[in-house]
């Protein structure tokens, strides 16, 4: 790959006119990465791999899928029963969506724990939240395509969220549907957009990586690399580590695909859509449950919708909400505890979202919702001011080679 010195005349010829090989060599081979990255740093490249798997299996599904209310359900069943390896492609796509969110959520919490959203990576973080939003839109529209009961009623409930908008709510919903209910026009446009959005995600992923490569990866200690002794070239050290992680991940993924392919699914979605009968219990896919819980925790329709979207958009403001200049939770003893409380809070919200809104579920859902916002809007800003961080090591190499606390005047995060 090393282009300028390449023995291959064709590579040299191309590279002189368009230095793509130099570029790849620079960004994927010699690209210096902190030498202390842990396995939590595998999830970014894993997300990229799942994105590719989703696009390939999706394009293959589209070759046998029919986006029409009268045929969509049958066409998916045909893919499952009659098309060669159709079951495999569909189960990869179905479970791949769950894996995608699993990996991205871990990636995101990793960023929160190690303060990866702080200067100079704010834009990188914001682009990440944009990717999350696009993924949610893509997965939501994908789930409508098999046209089962959950597809139909999930689409109905989610599109109806927009009816909460004052004045223009109803015309907007009619506009989204292309009719007076979720119907053929809706299914068609969702298919069109479901095909399009993943490629937009690819575009934003490139921007995300561009921003990443400007300053390089953060690391578990959260201090900047001070020189060549703190970093190692991406290839072969992290290519092999990413490859190993990918192997482990694929085992888990294959475990679901082959042994529990409907683990994440809803049995009701194997019943064809019926616009006249709502299933007794509508739930979205697991990865949307915490946000669904927030929506339902608030008794007022418009406020509920605002809180739900706000809970995601608020993440974009995290770099400014967090007033602490220390990145890694390793050196923030109090933040570290609140971080885990927040993780538990999100899991509780997920659990509440899966249950009917009655009795205790309502109370717990409201407390968990309140805590979600209190964590981001009050605890995080205050902690930065009140907490006393531990002493930071002088450099990435120090805790590894010398005695960790050798130099007291530790380098905090350097702001210009």
């Amino acid at each position: 790959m090393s282009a300028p010195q390449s023995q291959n005349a064709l590579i040299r010829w191309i590279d002189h006119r368009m230095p793509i090989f130099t570029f790849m060599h620079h960004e994927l081979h010699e690209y210096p990465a902190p030498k202390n990255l842990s396995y939590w740093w595998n999830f970014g490249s894993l997300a990229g791999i799942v994105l590719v798997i989703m696009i390939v299996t999706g394009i293959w599904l589209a070759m046998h899928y029919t986006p029409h209310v009268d045929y969509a359900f049958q066409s998916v069943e045909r893919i499952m029963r009659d098309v060669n390896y159709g079951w495999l492609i569909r189960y990869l796509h179905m479970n791949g969506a769950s894996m995608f969110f699993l990996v991205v959520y871990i990636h995101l919490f990793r960023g929160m724990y190690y303060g990866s959203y702080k200067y100079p990576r704010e834009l990188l973080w914001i682009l990440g939240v944009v990717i999350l939003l696009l993924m949610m839109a893509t997965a939501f529209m994908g789930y409508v395509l098999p046209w089962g009961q959950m597809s139909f009623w999930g689409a109905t409930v989610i599109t109806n969220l927009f009816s909460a908008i004052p004045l223009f709510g109803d015309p907007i919903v009619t506009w989204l549907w292309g009719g007076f209910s979720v119907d053929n026009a809706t299914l068609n446009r969702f298919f069109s957009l479901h095909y399009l959005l993943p490629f937009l995600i690819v575009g934003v992923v490139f921007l995300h990586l561009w921003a990443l490569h400007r300053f390089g990866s953060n690391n578990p200690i959260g201090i900047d690399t001070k020189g060549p002794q703190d970093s190692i070239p991406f290839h072969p050290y992290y290519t092999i580590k990413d490859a190993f992680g990918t192997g482990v991940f694929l085992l888990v993924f294959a475990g679901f695909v082959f042994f529990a392919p409907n683990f994440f699914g809803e049995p009701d979605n194997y019943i064809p859509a019926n616009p006249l009968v709502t299933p007794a219990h509508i739930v979205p896919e697991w990865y949307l449950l915490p946000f669904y819980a927030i929506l339902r925790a608030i008794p007022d329709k418009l406020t509920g919708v605002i809180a739900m979207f706000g809970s995601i958009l608020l993440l974009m403001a995290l770099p400014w909400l967090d007033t602490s200049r220390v990145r890694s939770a390793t050196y923030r003893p109090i933040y570290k505890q609140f971080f885990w409380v927040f993780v538990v809070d999100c899991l509780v919200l997920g659990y509440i979202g899966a249950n009917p809104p009655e009795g205790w579920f309502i109370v717990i859902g409201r407390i968990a919702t309140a805590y979600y916002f209190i964590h981001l809007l009050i605890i995080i800003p205050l902690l930065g001011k009140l907490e006393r961080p531990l002493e930071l090591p002088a450099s990435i190499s120090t805790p590894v080679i010398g005695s960790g606390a050798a130099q007291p005047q530790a380098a905090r995060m350097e702001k210009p």
Partner: protein
Amino acid sequence: MADTAHGRGPGSGDHGGSRRDFLVLASGAMGAVGAAAAAWPFIHYWNPSADVLALSSTEVDVAPIQEGQAITVTWRGRPVFVRRRTAAEIEQARAIKPADLPDPQDDAVRVKKPEWLVLIGVCTHLGCVPLGQKATEARGEYGGWFCPCHGSHYDTSGRIRKGPAPKNLPVPPYEFTGDTTIRIG
């Protein structure tokens, strides 16, 4: 050329802004109007098409419905409830003062003939179809309909009484074309 570049050449005659500024603003504004005009067909493309709009009336023969029973028909892809109310149900709907309701409305303005209640059977919260069409289904605390999705209770006039739904079940435009036939839409 140098004169125009600075916009204050002899004879340009303006003092506040240059001719170039004006041209930039004017062409920018034209461009914006043009872009908006070009966007409209793409936006309006999403709205219901002529054939969808054309399918907007449904004839119903209500003769077979017994007192206390209800049927569901489809109008514009959504369920419409036609319920033949009992005297007790009508009484119940009229007993309450509209002012005490979340979405105040008199029962009399929601029906053409008190016996026949015609409603769009779509919960005004997030669009589920409420239960209560069959006598065996839950009808909620007010004897009308109950939406299982997030727990909205409707009364025997289809008005919201309890739960997250903000509005009463809407009454579609309809008329009696005979004693026992209704045209919806």
